C-alpha cells in the first residue's frame, strides 16, 4: 500500500482522465441522448443513422451516447460539438435531418441553425438555453452533467471534478462530512423532506460496527422519471454521494434498490460500480486510505409500497414489502437488524456537491427552510415537457408558464397535479404557491417524488381522482384495514360518480371516509392515498356535483356520461372518413347520405371525432348523454 495522500492519488487520476477526454474533443463529437425516454422516441435509430452517415462520408467524428438532455418534448435529441463552433443542440431528429447535419455541419461548415434548439455555450451567433425563459429560472445542480457526459465512462465524470469531493473528505475526519451535510440542511428528496444530516447522525449514535447505506431508487409513481434519468445519465454522482455517506457514518456495505423495470438504469449503475471499483474508488482501501466500502444493486420487483422505508427493507430480506410500525427507526434497526441510512437518489446526488462547494453555497440556493433545488418531470398539457430543475421557492406559475412554456394552443389551465398518487390537484388560485416542502403541504399537495402533471379544461377531475385511486388501491399492501378496504370503497364511490350515480350524501361520505383512511393507516401510502380526492373535493366540488346531480361530465371525459353525435347540418355527404375510422362499425350512412352513429355499437373511442376533417368538425360529444330531438327527417 502506498503512503500517498488521497488527494494526490485523485489529482493524478483526474489529470489522466482529463487528458483522455480532452484529446477526444479535438475532433467533432455527436452526443446523443439515449436515456429510456430518448430510446422510446427512436434515439438508437438516430445513433445508427449518424454512425452510418459519418462512415459513408469518411469523416472523423465520434458518436457518443449520453443520458437525458432534459428537453423531452423535442426527442430524439443530439448535441454536436465541433471545434471552432459552439456546441449546438438539435431536436426532433430523423433520418433526413441527420443526413443534412452530417453533410453540412460535420462535413461542411454550416451548423444549420434553422434546425437547432439552442447552443450550450455563450457565443455571438446563436442563443443558448439560458437565453430562453426556461433557462432563466432553471438552475441545474444534480442534473448538470445529465446529457453531457458519457454515463458509461468514468473518466467523463472524473474529468468534471467527479470524486474530488470524496478525495477531499477522505483527508478529513468523517465527522466533517456529517457536519457539512447538517449545516447545509439537506432535506430528503424522497417526498417527506426529513433532514438527511439528522438521519445520518442517528445512525452514528446507534453504534455498532455493521451499518448499511441504501439508496432508494424504487421510483414507482406513474409519470415520474427523475430518479431513473439521473441513474441512467450520471450514476457516479449518486455513487459518490453514497460513499460519502458511508464514510460519515462508518458503513462498509451499501445497496442500490433499483426497480427491475429500469433495465437501462440497472446496467449503467452496474457498469459504474465496476469502473469505480477498478479505480479504487470502491472496495477495500478507497483512494489508498483505510476506508473500505462496497456497493451492490438489489433489483426491486415493482411494488409502489416498497418506496416506504420499512417495506423496502422487508423486500430486501426476501419478504413481501409490508411496512412496519416505527420506531424503531431504520437508523437504529434497519437492514438485517443493523443501523441503516436510507435516502433517495436525489438526496445522495446532492451530497458530493455540498462537500465540494460547501454548505453555505448550498444554502444560498432555494429558500431558508428548503435549501437547494427541486427536480420535476413536467408532463401533461404543457408545451415543453421534460426534466426540469428549479430552485426551491420558484412558484408553480413560473414553472408551468415560463419553464414549461405554458399550455399548448392557448388552452385554459385547470389544475396541476403534484406528487403523483400521494399528491394533490391544485387549481389556478394556488399557482402562486412557492415550491417547497412546507408550502405545498399547506396547499394540500406534497412535494412527493416530483411528478408534475398539467391539466386543462378537457380533463375531468373526478376521473383523475379515480385514476389515482385505482393505482393506490391496487398497490395497497393490505396490512391496514383502512387502507385495504377504504381505498376500495373510495374507488367504488368514484366509479359510481363517474357513472352519474350517487345522491346528496355521497360526497359527504366520501370526504369522511377519505379522512378516516388518512388517519387510520400506518404508512404514507395509506395516509396520502386520499389526497387526490381531498384536494379535488376542496377545489373542484362543482364538478363532482355536476356528475351526481345533472348526470353531466363538464370536461366531457367520463364515458358513461357522454355520447357521440354527428351533427347533420355539418356533416358532408361526400366524405366517408368517420365510417372507416370506427373500430366497431357503429357509423352508417343514412338514406339521405348523411352519417349517423349507432349508439348501441359505439364504444366512445373518440376515433371518429379525431378523424372528421376540420372543415366539417361534425362529430361532437354531448353530456348528459341525451340525443337531440331529430329535426330533419330523411328525405324520401
Amino acid at each position, binding site marked *: 500500500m502506498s503512503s500517498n495522500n488521497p488527494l494526490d492519488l485523485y489529482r493524478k487520476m483526474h489529470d489522466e482522465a482529463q487528458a483522455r477526454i480532452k484529446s477526444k474533443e479535438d475532433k467533432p463529437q455527436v452526443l446523443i441522448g439515449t436515456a429510456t425516454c430518448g430510446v422510446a422516441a427512436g434515439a438508437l435509430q438516430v445513433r445508427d443513422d449518424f454512425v452510418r452517415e459519418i462512415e459513408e462520408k469518411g469523416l472523423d467524428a465520434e458518436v457518443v451516447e449520453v443520458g437525458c438532455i432534459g428537453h423531452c418534448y423535442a426527442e430524439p435529441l443530439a448535441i454536436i460539438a465541433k471545434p471552432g463552433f459552439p456546441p449546438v443542440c438539435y431536436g426532433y431528429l430523423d433520418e433526413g435531418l441527420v443526413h443534412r447535419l452530417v453533410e453540412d455541419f460535420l462535413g461542411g461548415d454550416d451548423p444549420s441553425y434553422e434546425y437547432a434548439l439552442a447552443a450550450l455555450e455563450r457565443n455571438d451567433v446563436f442563443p443558448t438555453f439560458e437565453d430562453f425563459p426556461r433557462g432563466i429560472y432553471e438552475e441545474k445542480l444534480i442534473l448538470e452533467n445529465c446529457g453531457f457526459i458519457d454515463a458509461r465512462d468514468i473518466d467523463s465524470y472524473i474529468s468534471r471534478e467527479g470524486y474530488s469531493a470524496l478525495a477531499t473528505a477522505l483527508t478529513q475526519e468523517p465527522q466533517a462530512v456529517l457536519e457539512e451535510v447538517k449545516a447545509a440542511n439537506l432535506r430528503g428528496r424522497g417526498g417527506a423532506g426529513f433532514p438527511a444530516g439528522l438521519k445520518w447522525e442517528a445512525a452514528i449514535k446507534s453504534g455498532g460496527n455493521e451499518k448499511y447505506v441504501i439508496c432508494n431508487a424504487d421510483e414507482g409513481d406513474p409519470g415520474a422519471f427523475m430518479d431513473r434519468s439521473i441513474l441512467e445519465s450520471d450514476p457516479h454522482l449518486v455513487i459518490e454521494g453514497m460513499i460519502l455517506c458511508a464514510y460519515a457514518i462508518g458503513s462498509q456495505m451499501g445497496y442500490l434498490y433499483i426497480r427491475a423495470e429500469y433495465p437501462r438504469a440497472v446496467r449503467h449503475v452496474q457498469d459504474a460500480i465496476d469502473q469505480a471499483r477498478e479505480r479504487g474508488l470502491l472496495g477495500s482501501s478507497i483512494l489508498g486510505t483505510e476506508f473500505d466500502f462496497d456497493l451492490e444493486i438489489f433489483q426491486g420487483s*415493482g411494488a409502489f409500497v416498497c418506496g416506504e422505508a420499512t417495506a423496502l427493507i422487508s423486500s430486501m430480506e426476501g419478504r413481501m414489502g409490508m411496512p412496519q410500525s416505527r420506531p424503531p427507526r431504520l437508523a437504529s434497526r434497519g437492514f438485517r437488524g443493523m443501523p441503516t441510512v436510507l435516502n433517495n437518489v436525489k438526496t445522495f446526488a446532492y451530497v458530493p456537491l455540498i462537500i465540494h462547494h460547501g454548505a453555505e453555497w448550498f444554502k444560498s440556493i432555494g429558500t431558508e427552510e428548503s435549501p437547494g433545488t427541486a427536480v420535476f418531470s413536467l408532463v401533461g398539457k404543457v408545451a415543453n415537457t421534460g426534466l426540469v430543475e428549479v430552485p426551491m421557492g420558484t412558484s408553480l406559475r413560473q414553472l408551468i408558464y415560463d419553464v414549461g412554456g405554458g399550455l399548448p394552443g392557448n388552452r385554459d389551465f385547470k389544475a396541476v397535479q403534484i406528487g403523483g398518487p400521494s399528491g394533490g390537484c391544485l387549481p389556478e388560485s394556488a399557482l402562486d404557491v412557492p415550491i417547497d416542502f412546507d408550502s405545498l403541504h399547506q396547499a394540500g399537495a406534497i412535494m412527493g417524488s416530483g411528478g408534475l402533471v398539467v391539466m386543462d379544461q378537457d380533463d375531468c377531475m373526478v376521473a383523475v381522482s379515480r385514476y389515482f385511486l385505482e393505482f393506490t388501491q391496487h398497490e395497497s399492501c393490505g396490512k391496514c384495514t383502512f387502507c385495504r378496504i377504504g381505498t376500495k370503497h373510495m374507488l367504488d364511490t368514484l366509479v359510481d360518480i363517474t357513472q352519474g350515480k350517487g345522491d346528496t350524501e355521497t360526497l359527504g361520505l366520501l370526504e369522511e371516509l377519505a379522512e378516516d383512511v388518512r388517519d387510520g393507516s400506518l404508512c404514507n401510502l395509506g395516509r396520502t392515498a386520499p389526497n387526490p380526492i381531498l384536494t379535488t373535493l376542496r377545489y373542484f366540488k362543482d364538478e363532482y356535483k355536476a356528475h351526481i346531480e345533472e348526470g353531466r361530465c363538464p370536461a366531457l371525459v367520463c364515458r358513461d356520461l357522454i355520447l357521440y353525435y354527428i351533427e347533420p347540418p355539418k356533416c358532408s355527404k361526400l366524405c366517408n372518413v368517420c365510417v372507416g375510422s370506427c373500430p366497431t362499425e357503429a357509423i352508417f350512412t343514412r338514406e339521405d347520405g348523411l352519417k349517423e352513429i349507432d349508439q348501441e355499437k359505439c364504444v366512445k373511442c373518440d376515433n371518429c371525432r379525431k378523424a372528421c376533417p376540420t372543415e366539417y368538425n361534425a362529430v361532437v360529444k354531448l353530456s348528459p348523454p341525451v340525443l337531440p330531438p331529430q329535426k330533419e327527417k330523411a328525405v324520401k
Partner: protein
Amino acid sequence: MQLLEGEKELILACVDEVLSNNSKNRENLIPILQKVQVRLGYLPPLAMEKIAEGIKVPPADVYGLATFYNQFRLNPPGKHQVKVCLGTACYMAGGDITLESFERRMKIKESETSPDRLYSLERVACVGCCTMAPVVVVDEEVEGKVTPTRVDGIMLALNEENDKSNLEQEPEQGRMDSDELK
C-alpha cells in the same frame, strides 16, 4: 395454463440451474425468482414449488411474493407481447381506450395470454415517453399516439407475421434474453 410438451423438463432444469448458482437463503429468494423468470418468461406453479423446496420455505411464501410484486407473471408471455402504458399522461390521453381496443381484438383481458400463446396483453405504469402519449410497446417497439385504428393496424401486422411464420415453422416457446440478468 396447460404446459406444452417438454416444458416440464425445461422448468425443472432451469430451476435446478438457478438454485445451484445462488446461495439458498431467504434474502436471495426475490433474486432467484427474477432469474427464473428471465429464463422461463414467467413463473409456472411447478417452478415456484421447486424453489420453495430448495430454499426451505413454504410454497405459500413464494406464491405470496410472486403475486405481491408486479414484476412477476404467472402466465407465459405470448409470442407477441403488447404492453399498454397507463401512466398519468397516457391515461389522460386515452390509454384505457387503447387497452380496451386491444382486449376487443385479442379476445383476452389485460394480464392474460391467449390460449394459443400468440398474444399477451399487459398494462404498465410508465414507459417514460409521456410526450408520445398514449403509448404502447409491441414486442419492445414503442408506438406513440395510438388510436383504435392504429390498434387494428398493429393487430393486422402481427396476424400477418404469424401466418407467415406458421408456414415456415412452429412458434418458438419461452424465448428469453439470458444476458439481462447474470
